[in-house]
């Protein structure tokens, strides 16, 4: 782990564009990362166009066709139809939008809350730090899924509520990460210098410290994306999640569970979609970590 390659990315003397280019080169050298990027591109494509491209857009909006229930996979319905005669492929395609946006929402809200808490704790230190970090540790002790389930049950069903419920159990990791980075950054020469020049604490925090913790946050967000999608699906699987007719992978899987083994196809498509999307994000996250956060690389 002492090759010169990574040190380049760390070297503040290198012009930014150059650093980026090298990072991109390294990234493209890793076949796994490229595979991840490829899958994620497809996933994002379906996130944007899934609902529009679905062969039966009416059914995505809730139309039913009870005359053609439980049709096995065929040319007209590549993944078969479900208990209401809806085209499973259409539901899974449109489900991409729901699942990926929900996952992204969770990670985004979680990272914003976590960054704020961590930055304040790391910067203020003293009792504020103590209180915030105890709260963070405490939240970490409560099993995440159970906490999210309880909050989601309290807030009621719906896309937004589900995202908020999961995000509220998602922030502590970011708080710890950011606090650590802030504490480390405080001791850096340029921060000491800025302070000596009379910069206000606010300016130091926003201009000097936070920009430097951005890359570990982005790495963590990309690594978390997959797990957030999994958690969203898990909540849907238990039956606390979006409202019908919104198609969501976990909910689709939980409904189709009762029809196994005879109508197994209703479960296969949402399950595989989930797996592929998470797989893509995890590969991509690993690759990003390698180039953006060489310290973490092993």
């Amino acid at each position, binding site marked *: 782990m002492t090759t010169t390659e990574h040190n380049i990315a760390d070297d503040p003397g290198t012009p930014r564009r150059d650093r980026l280019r090298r990072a991109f080169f390294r990234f493209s050298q890793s076949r796994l990362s490229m595979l991840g990027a490829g899958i994620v591109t497809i996933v994002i494509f379906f996130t944007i166009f899934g609902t529009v491209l679905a062969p039966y857009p009416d059914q995505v909006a809730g139309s039913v066709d009870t005359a053609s229930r439980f049709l096995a996979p065929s040319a007209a319905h590549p993944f078969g139809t479900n208990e209401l005669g809806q085209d499973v492929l259409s539901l899974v395609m449109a489900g991409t939008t729901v699942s990926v946006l929900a996952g992204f929402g969770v990670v985004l809200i979680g990272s914003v809350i976590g960054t704020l808490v961590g930055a304040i704790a790391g910067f203020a230190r003293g009792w504020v730090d103590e209180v915030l970090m105890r709260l963070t540790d405490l939240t970490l002790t409560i099993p995440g899924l159970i906490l999210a*389930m309880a909050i989601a049950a*309290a807030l009621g069903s719906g896309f937004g509520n589900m995202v908020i419920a999961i995000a509220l159990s998602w922030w502590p990791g970011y708080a710890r990460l950011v606090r650590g980075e802030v504490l480390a950054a405080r001791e850096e020469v340029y921060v000491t210098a800025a302070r000596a020049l009379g910069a206000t604490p606010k300016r130091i925090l926003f201009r000097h410290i936070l920009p430097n913790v951005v890359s570990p946050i982005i790495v963590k967000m990309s690594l978390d994306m997959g797990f957030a999608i999994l958690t969203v699906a898990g909540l849907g699987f238990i039956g606390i999640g979006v409202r019908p007719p919104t198609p969501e992978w976990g909910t689709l899987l939980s409904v189709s569970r009762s029809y196994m083994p005879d109508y197994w196809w209703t479960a296969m498509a949402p399950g595989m979609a989930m797996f592929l999307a998470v797989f893509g994000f995890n590969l991509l996250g690993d690759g990003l970590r390698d180039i953006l956060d060489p310290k973490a690389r*092993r």
Partner: protein
Amino acid sequence: MLRFILRRLLLLIPVIVGLTIIMFGIARLLPGDPVALAAGPNATQAEIAALAVEYGLDKPIWVQYANYVSGLAQGDLGTSLLTRRPVAADIKAYLPATLELVFAAMFIAVAVGIPLGLVTAVWRNRWPDYLAQVSAIGAISMPRFFLGLLLQLCFAMWLMWLPLGGRLPIVVIPPRFVTGFLTIDSLIAGNWNAFFMSLRHLALPAIAMSLSPLATIMRMMRSSTIEVMQQDYVMTARALGLPSRKIITKYVARNAVSATLTVIGLYFGWLLGGTVLVETVFDWPGLGLYATKAIVSQDMMPVIGVALVIGLLFVFANLVIDLLYGVINPKVRYS
């Protein structure tokens, strides 16, 4: 060392207080009317009110909280509104099932993950290593409940090799309660039939649970092994011409395992809270299933109880891991 343990145990108190406050806060948020539900569909308003009084739910939240905490001091976790059973007794019945599942999953993950990690580190950057790395990310990406369903579909529904769910076939009388782990209890009772039966039931859910920690442990083990192998003393040992098998088993593995321990500790807590989905798939009568049912009926006492027990176990597991460090690496001092 004893002082270290005592101090860490004392730290549990603020955890208990904090946990209960947070969970009580969530309970307060609930819009529904669990009392009306518990009173039954045909109860009159007066009967509902009487039930609320009986459970102390008519009082302000801080009084309820004070009552709860004073009960907690006596090991009373409150009463489920829905079943009217004491939560502590329920948890005593469900916790061993969850722990047995978690330990079995952890056992598989460690027993397979650590050797795999060592092997892939030694074969670093050759094709078995690449294959293992891709599979590991695949394993982490696999939703546990989907994996559980696939295992169930394949081994329980199509091939019919293993049971669909539950802990024991109902015609097998469970062994006398000692640890609550059916595998261990049936061994204690010398009941081989019950032992094999419980293993058969444990297999699929434990595998579904173990895949993700297995992959993480393997990756951790691989990277810490690579790190250790580049340390001076290993280089020296190599230069001195010690056989590489000896180097790996004697120096590398030991040091790499100690780095992997933290992950195991963290995963233990994560698995405890993460059994919910697998328990749902395999109808495994554990804490997760219990909590899910309570959450859906907004029966908050069981939920608070489960969160508390899992939280404490999580803290406790980390304490044990810290102590284990000392056993593996005597250089660690507890202060």
